[in-house]
């Protein structure tokens, strides 16, 4: 598809703040990616992506093959999960997650049989250009593709936020700015064509006119490898949509908003989608997986993980099946070194410390970083903030972290929001530059999660209040209706009333009123037996209960009968 080259802006724009930081990428990025050997057991949390947890479609005891669907996406924003190898489902039970709080969540446990037999792949689409964007999106959804840069947002949902023809520029993120991590670097060196072919699929799916590839200037080999393929595609296929932009190495140049700002000068405010600005941003690893899913028909069952840090004997990049226990991955990299005291998932800036290594590699695991005290300063005691505002000078989101810190610590969350807490991207620059060694990001995460929690609680309380008010209203109305009906009946069939009351002491005196709502007076007048009326009331009440108790006026009136039947209406009144 020959395209006129879109004129790109000259030069780059950069962003405020940032941090020049020792990158520690060697030695892992010097070695080719190796395949991680199979292990005995894989654990697949149902919730390892942004959005709703997936719903299992297999039962314990079932035999599965690699690539077979284990759990289907539950919602528009959700992702499928596939078997990383062949074996038997051992259980579906809560297992420890790689989570900063050390939480557990329902997971599918797969006992591998070691044979690694593949399931029937999806229909391969070498002719992906004949497929509609909708077909490609649903393939990405079926294949469980999520953003592999760490955000794990379902790619199909991301593409769907773009209006048809509404994307002009695809931004490929190969900046990989965090220290230690080199999985994208290695991928760009070893499989540049897969990345670019995958990008072609996305370009086709969103009908974009150009693709900017942002790569930090500390990855010359990756740039060369990618450029070679771009040149070849241009020569052989007249594919001219790709353009590499080498960006300066300054953390967090690989943040989505920072990279877009660097490449295009456009700042995307919080609350707006990248697609609102006719752009789409994907990690290079994600587009490589898109190629495999769409053209080869393979589901996402593995990813490259950087195993690095002074805490592992033999740092390297490994191609790891999703669900592999981290302890085994560390073992495959030569095991821990003496004195390791910290294991992180992700890089040292945005990653989080794990409570244990018996947790699985998930789709978000781009790096396992094992550190000794010698690899960082021995954690100094945090001191009070001296308001030096180095954090503000370094903040790539132009925030005032020192002010947000002050109010988070005092739990004055409204003030935190005055200072734009939710614009914080948690890049960790402020914590790193703080001379008082304050774990600022932890304070911000605390404030954010507390605010979300309070909002949920408020919504729940509001809901409960409405239901309570309705409940009271209903009780009042029932009482009024009952009294009205009673008076009427007393006048009309006083004798019958007295007789019935004698017969059914203990059931309460108001039973005829139970059926007051409709035609009961007529029935009573017609001399129908009390017992028959009671039966009818019961049946109606049962039916009402089967339907929603929320039903507004109908539900309220029907339950009148029920209240009288069981003789508990006085109690209910007492409640109101």
């Amino acid at each position, binding site marked *: 598809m020959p395209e006129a080259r879109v004129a790109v802006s000259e030069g780059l724009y950069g962003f405020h703040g940032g941090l020049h930081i020792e990158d520690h990428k060697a030695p892992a990025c010097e070695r080719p990616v190796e395949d991680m050997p199979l292990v005995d057991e894989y654990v697949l949390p149902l*919730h390892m992506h942004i959005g709703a947890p997936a719903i299992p479609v297999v039962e314990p005891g079932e035999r599965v093959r690699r690539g077979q669907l284990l759990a289907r996406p539950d919602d528009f924003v959700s992702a499928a999960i596939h078997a990383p190898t062949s074996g038997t489902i051992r259980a579906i039970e809560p297992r420890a*997650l790689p989570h900063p709080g050390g939480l557990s969540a329902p997971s599918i446990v797969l006992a591998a049989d070691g044979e690694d037999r593949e399931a029937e792949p999806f229909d391969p689409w070498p002719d992906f250009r004949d497929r509609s964007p909708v077909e490609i999106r649903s393939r990405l959804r079926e294949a469980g593709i999520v953003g592999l840069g760490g955000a794990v947002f379902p790619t199909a949902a991301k593409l769907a936020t773009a209006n048809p023809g509404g994307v002009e520029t695809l931004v490929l993120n190969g900046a990989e700015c965090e220290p230690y991590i080199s999985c994208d670097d290695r991928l760009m060196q070893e499989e540049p064509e897969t990345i670019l072919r995958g990008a072609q699929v996305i370009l086709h799916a969103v009908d974009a006119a150009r693709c900017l590839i942002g790569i930090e200037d500390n990855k010359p080999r990756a740039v060369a490898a990618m450029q070679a393929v771009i040149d070849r595609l241009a020569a052989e296929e007249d594919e001219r949509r790709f353009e590499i932009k080498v960006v300066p190495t300054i953390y967090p140049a690989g943040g989505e908003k920072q990279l877009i700002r660097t490449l295009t000068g456009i700042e995307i405010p919080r609350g707006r989608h990248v697609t609102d600005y006719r752009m789409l941003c994907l990690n290079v690893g994600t587009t490589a997986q898109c190629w495999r899913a769409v053209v080869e028909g393979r589901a996402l069952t593995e990813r490259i993980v950087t195993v690095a840090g002074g805490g592992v004997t033999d740092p390297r990049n490994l191609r790891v099946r999703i669900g592999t226990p981290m302890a085994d991955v560390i073992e495959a990299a030569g095991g821990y070194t003496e004195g390791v005291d910290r294991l992180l998932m992700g890089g040292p800036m945005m990653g989080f410390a794990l409570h244990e290594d018996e947790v699985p590699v998930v789709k978000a695991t781009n790096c396992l970083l094992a550190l*000794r005290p010698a690899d960082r300063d*021995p*954690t100094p005691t*945090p001191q009070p903030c001296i308001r030096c505002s180095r954090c503000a000078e370094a903040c790539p989101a132009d925030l005032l972290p020192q002010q947000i810190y002050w109010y988070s610590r005092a739990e004055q969350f409204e003030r935190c929001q005055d200072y734009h807490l939710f614009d914080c991207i948690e890049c960790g620059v402020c914590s790193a530059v703080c001379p008082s060694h304050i*774990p600022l990001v932890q304070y911000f995460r605390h404030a954010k999660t507390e605010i979300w929690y309070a909002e949920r609680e408020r919504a729940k309380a509001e809901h409960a*209040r409405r239901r309570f008010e309705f409940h009271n209203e209903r009780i009042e109305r029932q009482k009024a209706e009952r009294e009205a009906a009673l008076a009427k009946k007393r006048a009309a069939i006083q004798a019958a009333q007295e007789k019935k009351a004698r017969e059914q002491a203990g059931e309460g005196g108001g039973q005829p009123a139970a059926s007051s709502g409709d035609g009961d007076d007529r029935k009573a007048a017609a001399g129908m037996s009390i017992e028959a009326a009671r039966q009818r009331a019961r049946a109606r009440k*049962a039916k009402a209960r089967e339907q929603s108790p929320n039903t507004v006026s109908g539900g309220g009136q029907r339950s009148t009968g029920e209240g009288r039947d*069981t003789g508990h209406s006085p109690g209910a009144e007492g409640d109101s």
Partner: protein
Amino acid sequence: MWMAILLAVGLAVLFGVVLGIAAQVFRVQGNPLADRIDELLPQTQCGQCGFPGCRPYAEAIAKGEADINRCPPGGESTIRNLADLLDVEFKPLDEDLEVQEVKKLAVIDEEVCIGCTKCIQACPVDAILGAAKQMHTVIEAECTGCELCVEPCPVDCIDMVPVDEGVEAYRFPLPESAHPVVTRGFGLRPEEPVNA
């Protein structure tokens, strides 16, 4: 001398008039205080405060008839919020009330339930579904955990079960260093390497 007195009196009259007009112009309708208090209450409608529901309790606080520390489900944070709103001192939960640490929901043991509907009568938010002589069940999303249904059950088939709020509800704690170290002496030394 007389000039000063005159000036002071004149100013007093002027301010009095201004304040009087302001009070009329900016008069607030209704009883917003009770509304605002009600908004801070957890709306479990449990009645543990001694009032039949959160709204009556809010009105009682607004009138000064009830103390702010009588809401066990709201816990410390609600008392703090109330203290902030009303500009009074924080006080711990009243001693005759039991502190509620974890959030719980009512769960009916469906094997044991005889379908008496007593719990349905007791529920202040109509969160229990069922019919006479039919098994009952609690609508999880609607239950406020008020425990009012537990007592009326003649067969003790309702349990209060702690809620698992899931990964999404995880709240990052404040760092330990948020709380100042209270100790006399040299203080903390740099962290020693830890070997697990």
